[in-house]
C-alpha cells in the first residue's frame, strides 16, 4: 500500500510540474493555483474579500479553540494513560454560555454583511445601462443608453475546437476568450439588466463581485463600477446544457475617451452592415455566408457534419421533414424555434439575410445538395414569413 501511495504521489508531482510549466496566470482571469478570491476592481468585490477574511479568521479561532480542547482531551483523557471517567453530564451555566456567545458572534458577522447586501442591491442612478441576454451557449449585449445606445452584438467563445479536443496546444486564455467582449467605461456605474432566451444562465464576473442569474421571461438587474481599466473574465455560472463550460464572459474596461471612440466605430459598423432584405443574392454567396452563420450558431447541436447527436439533437443531413421539404417549414422553425426542444427562436438574434443564408447552406451542404425542393432561399422569403 505504501508503495502504491509513493507511486501515486510521484505521479501527482510529475503532472503538476508538467502542467505548471506550460500555464501562466491569466490577466483578468484565474492565476495558476490561485488560493483565494479574485482581488477585484470594485468596492463590492473588495467588501466581499474583507467579509471572507473576517469570517475565516473568526472560524479559525473557534476551530483552534474547540479542537485544541478536543485534542488535549484525546491525549490526556485516554484509558491507556489510566484516565478515570468523571461523572458530570450537564451544566446549565456552561450550556447557556455556549449558546449566547455564538449568538453574539453571529450578530457581529451579520452587521457588515448587511451593509454590503444593501449596497449590492442598489442599482439606482446608473451612468450606463446594458441589457445582457443569455443564450444556449453565448451572451448577447444591447446598449440601452449613452454614446453606444443601440449597439448590440453576440459574444461567442473564441477558443478553437481543436484546443478543446486536444488537437492543438491550449493557449493561456483557454476557454476565457470571446470574439466580441462587452466594453464599458472606467469609474462609471454600469447597470446590467439580465435575462435569458431559453434556459437559466448566470452572468458572473468575479473581479466585479457580480453574479446574477439570467432567467428567461424575467428581467433582473445588478451593477458594478470598475475602478481600473483592463480586461476581466468570468464564466456562465448556472448549468445551462451541454456547452455550459463554453460560454465565457469578457468585459473590457476602457477610459472614457476610448469608450466614446469604440461606440462611434460600432455604430458606423452597424450602419454599414445593415443589409437590404430585398437584395437578390447568388447561390454561392448565400452558401458561403451561411456556412459562417452555421459555424457560429448551429454547430454546437447539429454538428459540423450535419448529423446532430442521435436522440438529443436531430440531424440536418438528409432530413426530409424540414431541410429537404419546401422552404416554408424550415424558415418558420428557424424563426420561431421548436417549443419543447433546445431549438431556440432565432428571430431576434439573426437578420433575414443570415437566416436565408444558413438555410440555403443546410440545403446544399453534406449529402443534401441537389436533393430537396427550394435549394435557394432569399432574404425576401424570410422577410415575408417573419
Amino acid at each position, binding site marked *: 500500500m505504501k508503495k502504491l501511495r509513493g507511486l501515486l504521489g510521484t505521479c501527482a508531482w510529475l503532472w503538476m510540474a508538467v*502542467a505548471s510549466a506550460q500555464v501562466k496566470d491569466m490577466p483578468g*482571469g484565474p492565476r495558476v493555483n490561485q488560493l*483565494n478570491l479574485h482581488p477585484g476592481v470594485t468596492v463590492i468585490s473588495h467588501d466581499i474579500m474583507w467579509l471572507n477574511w473576517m469570517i475565516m479568521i473568526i472560524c479559525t479561532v473557534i476551530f483552534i479553540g474547540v479542537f485544541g480542547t478536543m485534542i488535549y482531551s*484525546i491525549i490526556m483523557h485516554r484509558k491507556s494513560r489510566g484516565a478515570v471517567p468523571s461523572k458530570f*453530564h*450537564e451544566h446549565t451555566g456552561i450550556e447557556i454560555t455556549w449558546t449566547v456567545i455564538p449568538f453574539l458572534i453571529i450578530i457581529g458577522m451579520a452587521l457588515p454583511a*448587511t451593509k454590503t447586501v*444593501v449596497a*449590492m442591491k442598489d442599482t439606482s442612478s446608473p451612468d450606463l445601462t446594458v441589457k445582457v441576454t443569455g443564450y444556449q451557449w453565448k451572451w448577447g449585449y444591447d446598449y440601452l443608453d449613452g454614446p453606444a445606445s443601440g449597439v448590440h452584438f453576440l459574444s461567442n467563445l473564441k477558443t478553437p475546437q481543436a484546443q478543446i479536443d486536444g488537437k492543438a496546444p491550449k493557449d493561456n486564455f483557454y476557454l476565457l476568450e470571446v470574439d466580441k467582449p462587452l466594453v464599458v467605461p472606467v469609474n462609471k456605474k454600469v447597470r446590467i439588466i439580465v435575462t435569458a432566451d431559453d434556459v437559466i444562465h448566470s452572468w458572473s464576473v468575479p473581479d466585479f463581485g457580480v453574479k446574477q442569474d439570467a432567467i428567461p421571461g424575467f428581467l433582473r438587474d445588478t451593477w458594478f463600477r470598475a475602478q481600473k481599466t483592463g480586461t476581466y473574465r468570468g464564466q456562465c455560472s448556472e448549468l445551462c446544457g451541454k456547452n455550459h463550460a463554453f460560454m465565457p464572459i469578457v468585459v473590457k474596461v476602457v477610459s472614457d475617451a476610448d469608450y466614446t471612440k469604440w461606440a462611434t466605430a460600432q455604430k458606423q459598423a452597424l450602419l454599414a452592415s445593415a443589409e437590404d432584405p430585398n437584395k437578390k443574392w447568388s447561390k454561392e454567396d448565400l452558401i458561403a455566408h451561411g456556412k459562417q452563420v452555421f459555424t457560429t450558431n448551429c454547430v454546437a447541436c447539429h454538428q459540423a457534419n450535419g448529423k446532430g447527436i442521435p436522440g438529443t439533437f436531430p440531424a440536418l443531413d438528409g432530413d426530409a421533414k424540414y431541410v429537404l421539404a419546401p422552404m416554408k417549414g424550415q424558415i418558420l422553425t428557424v424563426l420561431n424555434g421548436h417549443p419543447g426542444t433546445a431549438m431556440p427562436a432565432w428571430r431576434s438574434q439573426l437578420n433575414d439575410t443570415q437566416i436565408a443564408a444558413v438555410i440555403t447552406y443546410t440545403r446544399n451542404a453534406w449529402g443534401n445538395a441537389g436533393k430537396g425542393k427550394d435549394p435557394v432561399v432569399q432574404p425576401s422569403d424570410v422577410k415575408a414569413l417573419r
Partner: protein
Amino acid sequence: MSSVTIDHVPPSVGHDHAHEKPYGWRRWLFATNHKDIGTMYLIFSFCMLLEGGVLALLIRTELFEPGIQFFQPELFNQFTSMHGLIMIFGAIMPAFVGFANWMIPLQIGASDMAFARMNNFSFWLLPVGATLMTVSFFVPGGAQAAGWTMYAPLSLQMGPGMDFAIFAVHILGASSIMGAINIIVTILNLRAPGMTLMKMPMFCWTWLVTAYLLLAVMPVLAASVTMLLTDRHFGTTFFNAAGGGDPVLYQHVFWFFGHPEVYIMILPAFGMISEVIPVFARKKLFGYSSMVYAVCAIAILSFLVWAHHMFATGMPVTAQLFFMYATMLISIPTGVKVFNWVATMWRGSMTFETPMLFAIGFIFVFTIGGFTGLVLALAPVDIQLTDTFYVVAHFHYVLVAGSLFAMFSAAYYWLPKWSGRMYDEKLGKWHFWMTMISFNVAFFPMHFLGLAGMPRRVADYPAQFTDFNQISTIGAFWFGLSQILFMYVVLKAFSGRGEKASANPWGAEQGLEWTVPSPAPFHTFTTPPEVN
C-alpha cells in the same frame, strides 16, 4: 392494559405460529422482520453507493485534465446529475432507514416495526426506483442531464431520461414517506414500559425528528417534479414565463424540500455520533436535553432558510437579509452539538477503536463543512461563491464526511450485534485512515478552485485550474478504492471469521440493544423489557 388479562406465554416456549423464520428467497421477498429488512436496506444502499461512486470517478476522470478527453459534455452532465440523485435518494437516505430498521426496535425494546408489511413494501420500492434511474442511461438521449436539482426550464428540454428520473423520485419519495410513518408510529407507540421520550437513545430522537421532516417535505418534492412532468407533457406552463409561469417558482418549491432534506441526511448522523462517543469515552452524553432541543431547533429552522440556495437569482433586499440571518442562526444549535460532544469526551476515559475514530473524524471534518456553510451564509460572499467548486467542497464535507463517516462509525459500532463477530480492528483502522486522508485530498483543493472562480458542473476548465483538479482526482480514486476495504471487513465478519462477540462487546453502560445476545436473534423483545 392492566385490566385485561392475557395468558402470558414466555418467549422461550416454542409455540408454532406464523412468526416462524421463513427460508430461501421467501425470507427476503416477503420479509416482515425488521432485521432482515434493515439488512436489505443496507446492502441496497451500499450497492447504490458503489454505482454513484463509479459515476463520481468518471466525472473526476474527465476533469483530470483541461480539454475534453473521455466524455462529451452531454454525457458528462448525465454523470453529474445522476451521481447526485443516486447518492442522495439511493445511497444516503435508504442507508439511514436501514440503520433505523435494525436499531430502533432494539433500542426502544420493541419486537418489530409497527407496520411490518408496509416496511416490506417501502423497501421493495427502492430497487424499482434504482432500476428506473440506471436504465435511463440507455434510453434515447440518455439520462437526464439537468443536475440533481432538475431546474426548469433546462429539465423541460431533456429527453425521456428526465421522465425516468421523475418517476424514480416519486417512487423513492413514496418509500421514504412510508418509512417515516413507520418510524414515527414505532417510536411513539412501541417503546418499552418506562422508556419515556426523554430517556430515549439519541439515535431514536434524531430519527423521530427526521421522520417528521420527511413527512413534511417529500410531498413538496413530489409536487415540484409533478409540475415538471405536466409542463413537459400536458401543456401546463408552471415554469414557462410565456404562459404566465415562473422558472424561479420551481427553485422555491424544490429548495423548500431541498433544505430540510439536508438535515434529513445529517440529523440521524448526529444521533449516531451521540451514541458512539459516550461509549468510547466511558462517560454519559453531556447535555442530553440540550442535544434534544438543538435537534428540534435545527429541524424548525431548516424550514426557514431555503432561499439561501437562490441568492444569485436576484431576490429583494429584505428577502436576502431574512434568509441570511435565518441561515446564520442554524449554526447556533449545530455548534451546541459539537460543544456537547467535546464536553462528553472531556475527562472521560477514551479508547480509539474504529467507531470512535470515525466519530472523531466526523466531528473534525463536519465542523470544517459547517464553517464553510457559515461563510456561504453571508449573502455577498455566497454570490461570489455560489455555483462554484467551493459549494461542491462544502456539501461533500457535510454529506460525505458528515453523513457517510457517521454511518461508517455506526456500522462498525453495531456490526458485532448484527453479525455476532468482532470485525478486524486492524483493517478497520486502515479503512479509517485511508478514508479520512483521501477524502481531504479529494475535496480540500476544491475550496481553492471555487474561491478562484471555477464554476461547478463544467466538463472543461481553464488550464490555470489544472493542478488542484489533478490532486482532487487522485484523492477521489484513492477514496473510492478504500471503500473496498470496508466491504471486505464487513463480509469477513459476516462470514463468521473473527472473534465471537459478546452481548455487550463495547461495555456500554446503557442501551437495550446490548442486553440481547450477539448476533441479535431473529425475534427480540417479544415481551417488552422494563426500563427504570
